[in-house]
C-alpha cells in the first residue's frame, strides 16, 4: 500500500486546523472561518481507501474539537458521513473534472457544518446562531467548494513527486530482436 497519500492527507488536515485556529484573517474579511476538512474529506474519499477516510474523520474531528468549544468528538460523524457517501458512489464520479470537484466540495462544506450544528443542538448545546449564520454558512460552503479543486491539484502533484511509480515496461525485448541477414 502507498502510505504517502494518507500521510499527506492527515498532515494537511493537522496543519489546516492549526492555521484555522491561529490566523484570523479570513474571519476578519469575510465574517467566517473557512474549513478545509470537508474539502480534504472529498479528496480522501475519491482517492483513498475506506480506512483512510475513517482515520481522517476520527483524527481531524478530534483535533478540530480539541481547539474548539465543541464537545469532543462531535465533528467526527458529519465528516465520516460525507466521506462514506462519496466513497460509495466514487465509481460514478468523474474525479478529474473541475466541476465535479467544485460541486462535491461545495456540498460537503455545506453539509458538515449543518450536521455538526444539528448534533450540537440535539446535545442541548447553545451555539451562537443568528441571521449572520446564513452568511457564514454560504462563505464556508463556497470557500470549501473553491478549495477542493486546489486540494486535488496539490495532492496529485505531491503524489506524482513523492510516490513510487512502477517502471513501465515497453515491448522491446533483446531476444525478440529480428536479426536481419544479408
Amino acid at each position, binding site marked *: 500500500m502507498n502510505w504517502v497519500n494518507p500521510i499527506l492527507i492527515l498532515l494537511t488536515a493537522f496543519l489546516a486546523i*492549526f492555521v484555522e485556529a491561529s490566523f484570523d484573517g479570513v474571519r476578519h474579511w469575510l465574517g467566517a*472561518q473557512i474549513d478545509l476538512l470537508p474539502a480534504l474529506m472529498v479528496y480522501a474519499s475519491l482517492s483513498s481507501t475506506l480506512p483512510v477516510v475513517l482515520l481522517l474523520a476520527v483524527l481531524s474531528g478530534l*483535533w478540530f474539537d480539541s481547539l474548539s468549544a*465543541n464537545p469532543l468528538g462531535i465533528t467526527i460523524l458529519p465528516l465520516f458521513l460525507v466521506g462514506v457517501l462519496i466513497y460509495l458512489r466514487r465509481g460514478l464520479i468523474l474525479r478529474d473534472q473541475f466541476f465535479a470537484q467544485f460541486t462535491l466540495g461545495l456540498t460537503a462544506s455545506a453539509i458538515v457544518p449543518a450536521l455538526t450544528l444539528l448534533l450540537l443542538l440535539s446535545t442541548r448545546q447553545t451555539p451562537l446562531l443568528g441571521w449572520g449564520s446564513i452568511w457564514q454558512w454560504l462563505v464556508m460552503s463556497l470557500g470549501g467548494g473553491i478549495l477542493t479543486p486546489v486540494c486535488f491539484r496539490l495532492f496529485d502533484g505531491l503524489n506524482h513527486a513523492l510516490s513510487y511509480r512502477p517502471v513501465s515496461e515497453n515491448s522491446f525485448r533483446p531476444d525478440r530482436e529480428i536479426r536481419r541477414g544479408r
Partner: protein
Amino acid sequence: MLRRPHYIALGLLGLLTLIVLNLPSHTAGQLKLTIGSFFLPLFGLSRTSHQLVGEAGDALTPRKELLRQNQQLRLTNQQLQVQSMQADAILRENEQLRLLVGWQKQTPWKLKLASVVVRDPANWWQTAQIDLGSRDGMRVDLPVLTPAGLVGRISAVGLTRSQIALIGNPGCKVSAIIEKTRETGIITIASGPLDNSLVVLSYLSSNSNLKPGQVVTTSGLGGIFPKGIMIGQIAEDSRPVEFGLYTEARVKLAANMGALEEVWVMLP
C-alpha cells in the same frame, strides 16, 4: 452499496463517537486539552516566528523614534507613579474606613499576563486559548481582561493552556451595571455571529430608559467578576422585549475582541 466492511467501519465509528461524547465533562475536558497539546510545537514555532518578525521590526526602528518613545514612556511612568501613590492613599483610607464600619476587608487582585494562542476554529463559538495553565495557577472562572475592558472568563484549564469563554459566547454571562442609572442587567450573548464587538444587555427593568454612550461595568453580582470592570458603552436606545416584560439594549464592548493578542488574568 454498503458491504460488510462499511457496516463494521460505521459501527466502530458510531461506538467511538458515542463513547467520546458520553465521557464525564472533566475527563472530556482533560482529553481535549491533551489532544490539543499535539499542536504545541506549532504554537511554539508560530510564537518564535512572531518574535523574530517583531525583533526584525525593532531593529529597523530609527534611534530618533526610539528616543522619542522612551521620553514619552518616562513621562507616562511618572504620571502613573503619582496616580499610584494617590491610589495607595485612597486604599489605605478605604481600609481604615472599612475597619471602622466593620465591613469585610477587600483583598486586592493580582494580574498575570497571558498570550492568546488559539481562536476557536468553529464559527458558532467565541472562545480562545491562552498560554497559561494549571501550573501557572489558572483555574476555572477567573476573569480575563485587557487594559480597555473585560474580555471573558476562564472556562477550562489544562496543564499549560486554558480556554477563555469570551463575552458574547453563550457560556459567558456577566452581571452588569449602568454607571449613571445604577440599573443592573445581564450580558447574555453577542448580538449576532458576525459582529463580536456588540453584545446584548438583557433582563433590564421594564421601565429602564438607556441612552447611547452610557458606561456599562461589572456589577460584582454572581461572584465571578469583581465590581467595576469596564465592559463597554450602550450602543443604542433600550427596547422592550417579551411583551414588555423586560428591556434590553446592545452594548459596544470596550475591548477589541477581534484583535486579542495579550490579556490579563485576574487572580484573587
